[in-house]
C-alpha cells in the first residue's frame, strides 16, 4: 500500500480539500503571498491571517526525475515521473506526472491537476495539459 499523508492540524484543511477533489493554495490576507506547504503563518511577513484559495490547477514541470526504482508500493510502477510542479499561483508541489511516453516528460511541460484514489483518500497528480 502506498503511503498517504497523515495531516497535522495546520495542514488538515488543505488535505481535506484534496480529498474533496480540490487543489488550493494558502494565501496571506495581509501581503497576498501565496505559498506551500500550508502553515499557520505567512513565511513572507509572519501574519497569522492565512486562507486557502482555489488554485487554477494549471502549472508547469519545474524539474523532474524518472524513478527507475521505487520504494515499497511503488516498485511495480517504475519507471515513473517524480516531478516538482510550479503552480500558476507561484508555489511548487511534488507529484507524479502521468505520461504515456516517458520521453515526453520535459522541463516546462504544461500540466494540469488530477486526483488519484488511494484507499479512502485522494492524492494529487498531474497530466500533460495537451492530454487534458
Amino acid at each position, binding site marked *: 500500500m502506498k*503511503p498517504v*499523508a*497523515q495531516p497535522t492540524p495546520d495542514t488538515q484543511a488543505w488535505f481535506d480539500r484534496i480529498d474533496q477533489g480540490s487543489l488550493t493554495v494558502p494565501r496571506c490576507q495581509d501581503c497576498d503571498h501565496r505559498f506551500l*506547504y500550508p502553515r499557520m503563518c505567512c513565511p513572507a511577513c509572519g501574519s497569522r491571517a492565512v486562507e486557502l484559495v482555489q488554485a487554477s490547477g494549471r502549472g508547469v514541470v519545474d524539474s523532474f526525475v524518472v524513478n*527507475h*526504482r521505487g520504494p515499497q508500493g*511503488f516498485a511495480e510502477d517504475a519507471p515513473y515521473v*517524480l516531478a516538482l510542479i510550479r503552480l500558476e499561483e507561484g508555489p511548487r508541489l511534488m507529484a507524479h506526472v502521468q505520461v504515456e511516453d516517458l520521453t515526453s516528460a520535459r*522541463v516546462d511541460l504544461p500540466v494540469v491537476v488530477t486526483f488519484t484514489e488511494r484507499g479512502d483518500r485522494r492524492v494529487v497528480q498531474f497530466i500533460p495539459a495537451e492530454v487534458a
Partner: protein
Amino acid sequence: MGLRGAIAIVGAAESTDLGKLPDMSALQLHVDAALNALADAGLKPSDVDGVASAGELPNDVADYLGIVPEYLDATNVGGCSYMLHVRHAMAAITAGLCETVLITHGESGRSRVGMQPWAPAPQSMMGQFEVPYGPVGAPSLFPIGVRRYMDTYGMTEEQFAMVPVVQREWAARNPRAKLRDPITVEDVLSSPVIADPIHLAHCCLVTDGGGALVLTSAERAKDLCSSAPVYVLGAGESSESSVVSGLASLTSSRAIERGGRAALRQAEVAHDDVGHLMIYDAFAHVPLYGLEDLGFVGRGEAAAFVAERNTAPGGRLPLNTNGGGLSYTHTGMYGMFAIQESVRQVRGTAPAQVDGVDVSVVTGVGGMFMTSGSLVLGSASTV
C-alpha cells in the same frame, strides 16, 4: 572580538578502519575516531571539557569516554552538522565557555549496527508532502533539480559524468579509498539508472566509519605537542526549506551560498587564495552547485570547469581530493570526512597531497540542500 584564526584544530583522525565494519556499533565508531584524534593531539579524554556530536548524542559520547563536559553541542542538521559544531566551538572557546572541544562522527551506514532506521516522520512536512509520491529517498529527492539545471545551462550528460570520473582519479591516489579503479564517461552513463538523469555512478557509497576533531584556542594550540595546528579562519552556516519542493532555486543552493560566503568573508580570503576545496558530494551535482554558490565559477560554468579538468589532479583548483563520497567513503553524514581531508591537505599529510595548500575551503550540506555549513581552514602562515 575577532574570531578569525582564534581557534585551531589540534587533533584530527578517522576511525581505524572504514568500509564494512559489522563488529563496530555507531557509538563505537564515534569513540574509536575520538581516541585516534585525541592521540593525534597528544591529549587524553580527561583533557576535554566540551563535546559535540551528531548521530549519537554528545552526552552519550562523553559518558562512554569518561569525559565530564561543561559544553555540549548536539546540533544535528544532517551531514554538515560537523561544520556547524566547529563554528559553534569557535564562538564557545573564544568566549571562554570551554577550552578543548571534541567533535565526533560515527555511523554504521552500511552494517546498520546500533543505528536507528532512517525515515522521515510521517507527520513531518517531508512525510506529508513528498513521501506519498514514492521518492526512493535521497537518490531522487536530492538531484531532482538537475534536469532544470541542464535545461537552463546546457550541461550535457557527458559533462555531468565527468564529476565521478575526475573524483575517481583522486581516489586512485588514496589507498584508503573504497573505489580506486579508473572509470570513463561511458562507464558512468552505462551504470544502472536510479532516478534518470542519475546513474549509480553519480551516487555516493554507503559505508561504516567515523571521524573526530579536537579544537582549542590558537594560543593553547602553540603549547601542545601535536601536529601543526590548522587554524579556523572562517565559518558559516545557513538553512532553507524543509521540503525539496520549497527550495528557493532548483539550480543553486541558497544555504551553501549564504553559509559559504559568510565563511569566506570572515576568513578574509579571496577565491584565488584558496588552494584546495572540498564540497560534500552525496551526489555528483552537489559539487557543481557548490562551485557556483561559493563563487569559484560563474552560474552555469561548473560543469565545463570540471569537464575541462580544472578540479582534477594537476588542475588549478583541486576538489574532493580524497575521492569524495562518490569514491572514498560515505557513511551517511559525510561532512566529517570532508573536514578530515581539508585538515590533511593543510597539514601536508594527504595521500594525494596538493603542493603548498595554505588555505582550504570545506563545504557541507544537510538533507537535500536544506542546510549547509562551510569552513575556511588555514596553515600557520595565514594567521
